[in-house]
């Protein structure tokens, strides 16, 4: 194939990235200016900075195609994927690139996102009934709800923007965050799942702390309607399970109590 050489947008056009550099002890914004190139995304510019000006500039990335969710950062203050943010769509002037604020700094643009992997361990596994001899049957319309949530690329931008944990480290103990609310919703809406996770999500995952400001939905690069399609329906289901006056009366009369989260979790495999 012929090999077109990159055409600079204009002979002397430049792009300036104002990148946060530092470590857990502190850091500062550093400006890097390079010749501009047509059609670039922010991650391309970071790569060119690494190759020429700052070979040790730390930045997490993998696919550079918006599919793996590794290069999450805050671009001009907004949580975004560096690989899906075109330079020519941003306002003129320096582009500020800073690490996600909700997670501890490792170095430069790389944060310690282990919080998310810890929460993931607390989600009880999918628990289907044994398959019938000719395999499970499910209708497309029924799997579609879960499929929306399974588009999640785990970029954790929704976790980053969520004000419940963004400036409240203490809430991380008892709040799972939007990424895991959609995981719970996905399992709860799975046509084959046999677990009831409503008490767990209320008591242990802090669903009640979310006050549906929809910031998570706004930053989702997969355009998952996190608030409308997952969080609100989950809140409704929790309300049905916990606060429905008829159900409450029924429990009183029949002297049944609600299951504790541990009991709910114990039914998980």
């Amino acid at each position, binding site marked *: 194939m012929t090999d077109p050489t*990159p055409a600079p947008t204009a002979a002397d056009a430049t792009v300036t990235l104002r990148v946060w550099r530092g470590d857990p002890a502190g850091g500062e914004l550093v400006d890097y200016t390079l010749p501009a190139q047509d059609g670039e995304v922010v991650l391309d510019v970071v790569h060119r900075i690494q190759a020429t000006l700052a070979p040790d500039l730390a930045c997490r990335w*993998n696919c550079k195609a918006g599919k793996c969710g590794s290069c999450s950062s805050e671009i001009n203050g907004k949580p975004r994927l560096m690989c899906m943010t075109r330079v020519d769509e941003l306002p003129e002037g320096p582009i500020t690139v800073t690490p996600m604020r909700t997670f501890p700094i490792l*170095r430069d643009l790389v944060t310690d996102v282990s919080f998310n992997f810890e929460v*993931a361990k607390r989600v009880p596994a999918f628990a289907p009934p044994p398959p019938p001899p000719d*395999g499970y*049957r499910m209708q497309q319309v029924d799997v579609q709800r879960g499929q929306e949530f*399974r588009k999640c690329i785990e970029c954790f931008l929704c976790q980053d923007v969520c004000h419940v944990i963004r400036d409240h480290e203490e809430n991380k103990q008892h709040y799972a965050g939007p990424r895991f609310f959609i995981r719970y919703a996905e399992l709860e809406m799975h046509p084959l799942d046999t677990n009831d996770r409503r008490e767990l999500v209320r008591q242990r995952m802090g669903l009640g702390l979310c006050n549906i400001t929809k910031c998570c939905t706004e930053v989702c690069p997969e355009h998952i309607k996190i608030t409308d399609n997952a969080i609100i329906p989950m809140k409704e289901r929790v309300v049905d399970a916990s606060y429905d006056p008829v159900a409450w009366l029924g429990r009183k009369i029949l002297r049944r109590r609600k299951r504790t989260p541990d009991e709910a979790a114990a039914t998980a495999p």
Partner: protein
Amino acid sequence: MPENESHRYDVIVIGAGGAGLRAAIEAHERGLRTALVCKSLLGKAHTVMAEGGVAAAMGNVYPEDNWQVHFRDTMRGGKYLNQWRMAQLHAQEAPDRVHELEAWGALFDRTPDGRITQRDFGGHRYARLAHVGDRTGLELIRTLQQRAVSLGIDVFMECKVLRLLTDDSGAVSGAVGYWRASGDIVVFESKAVVLATGSIGRCYTYTSNSWESTGDGHAMAMWAGADVIEMECVQFHPTGMVWPLSVRGLLVTEGVRGDGGALKNSEGRRFMFDYIPEMFRAETAETEEEADAWYEDHANNRRTPDLLPRDEVARAINSEVKAGRGSPHGGVFLDIASRRSADYIRRRLPSMYHQFMELAGVDITAEPMEVGPTCHYMMGGVRVHPETQAATVPGLFAAGEVAGGMHGANRLGGNSLSDLLVFGRRAGMGAADFAEGRAGEPAADPAQVDAVVAEAVAPFERDGGENPYDLHRDLQTTMQALVGIIRNGPELEQALEKLGELRERAGKVHVAGGRSYNPGWNLATDLPSLLTVSTAIAQGALARKESRGGHTRDDYPGPDPELGKVNFVQRQTGERGYAAPIQISAEPLPAMPAELQALLEEGH
């Protein structure tokens, strides 16, 4: 030297894409102490980028489909260079592996009667790919990841393995690597090691592969004394994005053509009709009418040439561009906009719609895409036993793209995700059996560890020298220009000479900064594998004096029946490492039983 962090396991799995996850799940469920070690965060491996689907002859859409037809398609697609037993096991076991994923929570798209639906892909006689829109890889990796997490498997994330350790007998006894976050060394002592490190795409400038695809497993296996086969067989996917330059090489799924998209040149001609090879003539449509009718009715029409195997399509695109009938940015056109409704396109190909809209400003429901070949897949790899996935060195196993043999000279689309599942599981079983039978606890040899660490940190200790980014770029330029999609003897000789110079330069690499999350240093530690793998590809390509599947020589344009009976095997017999020479020899392929041979001949 300071005491290194050290861990002891029965089985360690290096790489956490589909194959690594599936292998770890299997070994863990057998009750063995199992660890998963990966260069990136869990769930970010290259498997996530697979789009089209998992090939499995479930017969949900075409009841005529069965493992025999899948086996035949796979062997024909691989131009008969495949290890027949792997292709057979793969075709037989893939449906069970897909059903297993469903029991672990995967949500595949459905048929009207509620079963898993299947889509058409190149080289598959029937619609065979189980899928989730065009993000099947994400579904697969997330399902396996969630399964592994729920089982409590130990995961070492962002931990780069540098080299395997061996004991006095030469058997593999562990590995040494470093944490990317801190740069600290970590040593694994293990009874068995499974390599599941994926591809080699980063040897080339234009690739659909993520940064991780640096051939670490291919190279580490060779440095441990194992054989690799068919390293010359690199797949260039016909449809990568060509513009903007920053996304050049990014994959455009074959599903676009499976769902009705057609390739056209600058004259608007569907040029694939001009490139139907003899081998596929009987089963390929000759007219546009027949090709278009095939989408609805496979029984009474032959398949469109747009869906010939990938090697054929990639070469055709290359020829059209060379003849001056390319698109403005040096590719050809892929048109689905004029052939399917906007609704259908957005529903069937949501990621493609998204990718072109956001990265190229192209609305694929309204205008054609520009596409061209991109380095996509490595057919060659570690020579393994077809049933246990054991390498030729005791204690070492390999599965997925790092293993060779399954796909022969060219892989069919959809056969990679099924390969990961079938042979990931088998590698986990093989490694578990081996670990259970291995006496004693392997111990790391401190001298080996010290030598590996010394080589890895040497770039910090040099006063000035080569920039690792420059070296990597020069390597990619060399491979792209001289060992690319169309090859010839003089250029391959030239490539080997240049690779020799690059290996010399690799000994002079200098990096600045500290060891904590330093991408310059991380790249410097990837360079040895990239160099070993590139050298093996070029040597294999020079040795195979014919054109077959993904390997095309313009000085030997046709297949040579004699070379169709051999594998080119490469290994390091004396000194080992990126600077040491690699020996190459031709060895006969295993003989196929008559009943399988008959399947290949049947009908065609």
